[in-house]
């Protein structure tokens, strides 16, 4: 297949609402899942012959299990408030990427088979047969959504396209029409224990290397303990932190924070993945099976507290879903939130004066912060609504002298997705990822031009991977991307007093 040329949107610093261009990204299709991965997840290995009946059956089943889906199928009035809110529409101009139109792909089939009006009046009430063409459209456009929930902020009824995309993908999986990237990764978690497929010894050698590296550059002994029984803290983080750049910089930051706090902590080679791609395909049992490794890690290592690293969808899973999936956390010390975000932990230390931070260590940077979609709209930090916006910013401001926010319509609850979340961080979708990143890139360009910003601070493994890859397409250096705890790690003064 000849590769279509990727056209990178032009950067002007402004986000314009484009006119629609039907079918603009109808050809961008994610690779289909391999049979072995599908079977391992409990799905049919390939498209089943009676897919039409099975798909409708699964939809009916999900409608009974998810109030969100049932209500969202019925109550959209097509007011249009969401139509200019999705980064994938803004970047691609494909009207099927408008949240209402994406949901309509599912709704028209719902009406045809599962509502009285649709059965009787058919096309008059937008009810349509499930054809192979529609099925393919489901596959295409439910993999051009990052489940970022931006549309749900502006919807007068709170219709959340993430729920609809998850249902769509779950139906597709149930008939053997899964996506390669996500199923392959979940299969890796089932067999090896983490998304990157790193066995314990491989993680250990990275940790040893990091320890030596810090010793050489700063002279300090910073430990990266793994599988320590009875440590105060079990620290769970996305496996990308053990391997990828700039992720690993934040891992060094966490370790330095724990050292300065004088608290014993440990990683787990079994619970070596905070991420949970089960969320991306919606399936409850897969989600729980992936999350269960965390529960097993807790039962095995018997920590008092559970702390979570920098990752967006993982924090949504941890904060919002873990208690349901694998709780209650009876064995943990009830004095502390379970789980607790590393940013909550670090800011608390900063406020109590337990960390000595040298802001000048980050003087080469003018920093801005990208709110990760799942943290912003699917979770909280701290004890007040919106703490997820304030806490990371407070940490950043404590670690550097120059901080500036991007356009207020692109941050906090209105933040755009990086363009790579929700299970689309895969090479064959690079075109839609570039287009989806456009609104964030425009806002980034604006603060670069006005304030000389040169550091995009993040708290998500997917955001980090996505922007590292995408920035060069837009003419920026991938080195401008980094974690919040990367800034902390650079500013922290290690020879200061230990303990609190």
């Amino acid at each position, binding site marked *: 297949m000849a590769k279509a040329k990727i056209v990178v949107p032009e950067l002007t610093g402004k986000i314009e609402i484009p006119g629609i261009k039907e079918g603009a990204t109808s050809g961008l299709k994610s690779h289909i899942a391999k049979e072995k991965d599908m079977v391992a997840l409990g799905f049919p290995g390939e498209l089943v012959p009676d897919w039409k009946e099975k798909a409708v059956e699964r939809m009916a089943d999900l409608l009974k299990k998810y109030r969100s889906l049932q209500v969202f199928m019925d109550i959209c009035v097509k007011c249009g408030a969401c139509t200019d809110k999705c980064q994938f529409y803004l970047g691609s101009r494909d009207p099927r990427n408008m949240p209402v139109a994406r949901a309509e792909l599912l709704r028209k089939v719902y009406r045809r088979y599962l509502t009285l009006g649709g059965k009787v009046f058919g096309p008059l009430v937008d009810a349509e047969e499930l054809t192979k063409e529609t099925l393919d459209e489901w596959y295409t456009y439910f993999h051009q959504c990052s489940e970022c929930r931006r549309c749900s902020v502006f919807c007068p009824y709170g219709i959340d396209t993430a729920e609809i995309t998850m249902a769509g993908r779950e139906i597709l999986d149930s008939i053997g029409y899964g996506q390669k990237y996500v199923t392959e990764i979940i299969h890796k978690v089932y067999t090896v224990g983490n998304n990157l497929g790193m066995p314990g010894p491989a993680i250990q050698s990275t940790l040893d290397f990091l320890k030596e590296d810090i010793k050489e550059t700063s002279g300090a002994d910073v430990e990266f303990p793994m599988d320590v029984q009875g440590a105060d803290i079990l620290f769970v983080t996305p496996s990308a932190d053990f391997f990828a750049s700039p992720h690993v910089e934040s891992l060094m930051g966490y370790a330095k924070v724990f050292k300065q706090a004088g608290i014993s902590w440990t990683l787990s080679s079994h619970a070596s993945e905070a991420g949970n791609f089960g969320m991306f395909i919606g399936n409850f049992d897969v989600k729980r*099976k992936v999350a269960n490794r965390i529960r097993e890690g807790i039962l095995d290592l018997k920590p008092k507290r559970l702390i979570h690293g920098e990752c967006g969808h993982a924090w949504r899973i941890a904060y919002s879903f873990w208690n349901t999936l694998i709780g*209650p956390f009876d064995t943990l010390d009830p004095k502390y939130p379970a789980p607790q975000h590393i940013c909550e932990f670090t800011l608390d230390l900063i406020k109590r004066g337990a960390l000595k931070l040298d802001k000048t260590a980050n003087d080469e940077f003018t920093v801005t912060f990208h709110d990760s979609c799942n943290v912003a709209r699917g979770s909280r930090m701290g*004890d007040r609504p919106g703490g997820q916006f304030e806490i990371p910013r407070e940490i950043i401001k404590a670690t550097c002298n120059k901080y500036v926010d991007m356009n207020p319509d692109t941050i906090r609850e209105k933040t755009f997705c990086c363009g790579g979340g929700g299970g689309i961080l895969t090479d064959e979708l690079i075109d839609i990822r570039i287009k989806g990143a456009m609104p964030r890139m425009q806002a980034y360009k604006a603060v670069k031009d006005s304030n000389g910003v040169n550091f995009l601070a993040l708290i998500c493994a997917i955001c980090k991977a996505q922007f590292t890859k995408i920035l060069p397409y837009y003419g920026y250096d991938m080195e401008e991307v980094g974690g919040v705890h990367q800034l902390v790690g650079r500013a922290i003064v290690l020879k200061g007093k230990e303990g609190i």
Partner: protein
Amino acid sequence: MEISLLMVIFSAMAYGAGAVFVVGFLARLSKYAKAPSPLKIPTTPAPITNVGVVFRLLGDVILFKSLFKGNKWTWTGGIVFHYCFLLVVIRHLRYFLYPVAGWDMGVMQNVGVYAGIVLPIAVIYLLMRRTTVDRTMFVSSLADYFALALIFSIAVTGLLMKFYVRPFMVDVKGFMYGLVTLNPSAPPADPVFLLHITLVFTLMAYFPFSKLMHAGGVFFSPTRNQCDNPREKRHVNPWSPNLSA
């Protein structure tokens, strides 16, 4: 009591439409109520107390706060449309109440008439917006235009009676009051009036099968009606309450 054909037809339509509306509406709501919420999914930042959740929901139901964030033009049209509709309905209570409550007379009647004049204008505004923006044009379909056309026709036939072809009001009240007291009588044989109520019955019967269920449905939206406290209070998925592992 004289039994006329008009009486039989219109009483049957009234009771039929009323039954479809009430039973259908409640059946939909019961479907929403029965479907469980397996996970906590409020769109955050969300209230962390139940009182906060009530305020959030009321903000969306009364002030359309989310829509205000989303699109000021649509919000303006939506607010004007819905409140005019509400005032017109309140004004019509005088046909069902005997004696008519004091608050429903005088000023309320005038306000209702003004609202009735604005209502079709708001419908046209919403229609214009729907058809002039390429994005909403793309997603709009027959069902969307039908709902607008129906409400527009109801408003216009109502205004016609108010200002041009006034039916004999004693007969109108007699018919309406007869319906609510289960003592049906013949409606006035006034074509505009009969068209007006036929359209209203159509709207009522259509309601539970359509997007109009957003009234009522919005209260069941989990992203709006859930409290943000998953760490403090364990939320249990009713269809998968315990770990099998």
